[in-house]
């Protein structure tokens, strides 16, 4: 499968990544190569093989329903959260106005 520059531009727009026409022209064959490699992998017969989700036997761990049990993954850290925000006001992050 080959990717054309129009597809590259569309994907870039969906991800809000600004690219120039030259970027798109350079990226199209690069992405085509990657997809070509994946096509090659698809040639392997995987009938009856379970999809592998991890390289070691592992189970999804669940957390208990406790607020702020671990300070690293809890709330109440507004100042730290905002420290690197380009523009924060009155406890809010702010962005250029987005409205329907």
């Amino acid at each position, binding site marked *: 499968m080959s990717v054309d520059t129009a597809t590259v531009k569309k994907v870039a727009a969906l991800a809000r990544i600004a690219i120039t026409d030259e970027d798109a022209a350079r990226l199209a064959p690069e992405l085509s190569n990657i997809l070509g490699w994946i096509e090659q992998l698809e040639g392997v017969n995987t009938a009856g093989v379970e999809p592998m989700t991890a390289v070691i036997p592992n189970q999804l761990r*669940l957390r208990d329903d406790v607020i702020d049990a671990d300070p690293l993954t809890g709330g*109440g850290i507004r100042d730290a959260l905002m420290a690197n925000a380009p523009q924060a006001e009155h406890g809010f992050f702010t962005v250029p106005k987005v409205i329907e």
Partner: protein
Amino acid sequence: MSDYRIQGATGEWEVVIGLEVHAQVTSNAKLFSGAATAFGAEPNTQVSLVDAAMPGMLPVPNMECIRQAVRTGMAIDATINRWSRFDRKNYFYADLPQGYQISQLYHPLVGEGAIEISPDDRNPDATKTIGVERIHVEQDAGKLMHDQHPTRSYVDLNRSGVALMEIVSRPDMRSPAEAGAYLRKLRAILRYVGSCDGNMEEGSMRADVNVSVRKVGDELGTRTETKNVNSVRFVMAAIEYEAKRQVEVIEDGGRIVQETRLFNVESGTTRSMRSKEDAHDYRYFPDPDLLPLELEEAFLADCRASLPELPDAKRKRYEGLGISAYQADVLTAEVEAARWFDALLEAGAKPVAAANWTTSELFGALNRTGRDIATSPVSPSQAAELLALVADGTLSGSLAKQVFEVMLETGDAPARIVEDRGLKQTSDTGAILAVIAEVIARSPNQLAQYRGGKETLFGYFVGQTMKAMGGKANPAVVNELLKKALA
């Protein structure tokens, strides 16, 4: 079945409706982080590094959210998938710091189920089954405020990462009334189960409304999706408007475009949200941060064992006790009222009398005083005591009403009120006969007329006697003694 039709210029049209309901899961912490979920906190105070999508943070699912979604699935007799998986739904918006929502597209936690609805509340036994295609769990987004600043939008991420259940119905509804009944029933089930508080004003439950129209018996038409409608009334209004609009478009020679629309609360109309068209390319893929979710049999058994009696089962049980279908429906509609009524029965009240009293006297009084069952000044055991005083003849119906009024004001026990205010009903024939004699003695004209054949005057004598006795005479005894005295 529904005979709701849109009358078009070319004949009758049928409306086909499916609902995707987003219900906020009741939990202390968020779906993938330890930040709190409580409504109304100061902006961005309930946001963790995970919810703000700081680099390197890994999501770890909250077991309680999974448990609540499984219990909800069980409550609608749905298949529970012991193997499910999380996917990334990619889109770019300021309320979504990750740039993707963690959701479940390919392998949802809960599969096919069903909900039984009664679209006509005067006839609760006329039911229809609405299919539920799936329930999956996903993250909520943050909130944007556009009116705080002339050129900036404010972002509050408190909701970001809160667990939602998306409950997707089959396109089985055919009228606004059926959609309303479905939403009310779903809300009741969620509240019985305790998996969502059902508070639509606070956004705990929102519906995306899928509507299409067709000539009766035709293939399904193209549907539109009206997003984020947040009350039963608005859902019904949106369907009504959207169905009429679609019929007009088609009959004018146009065609319906599959699109997302917005409901305007003020005008009751919907409008296209064309600017988001691109966003439909969500490029879903399995979230590499999360292993598949595998559930043990013991976990499922625990979920099943923790389910309470659900509205349908409760309604049938009440009907089995001799309570009318209508009253059983009213009593089971809200979980708090149903639990209150169960407590009343447990306190020994007779089911039929208890149902009559609760649905008329209690609900009437709560309505009148702007209270709900949770803030009822009368407890189930006090109510049982009042009903027992009526059952054993201590109080007549009208005395019971007086006692109840005092209970509402003071919160006192009925026996004490009866004692303190001397409201006891009397069946003392001697006392009643004395009053009757007195009434007859001062009403010679009425007596002559009554004996002359004007039998409606019997009511006059009853009234006079009751009045003279301060409403405390046993009405049955008064009737019997008066009949004899006047004959």
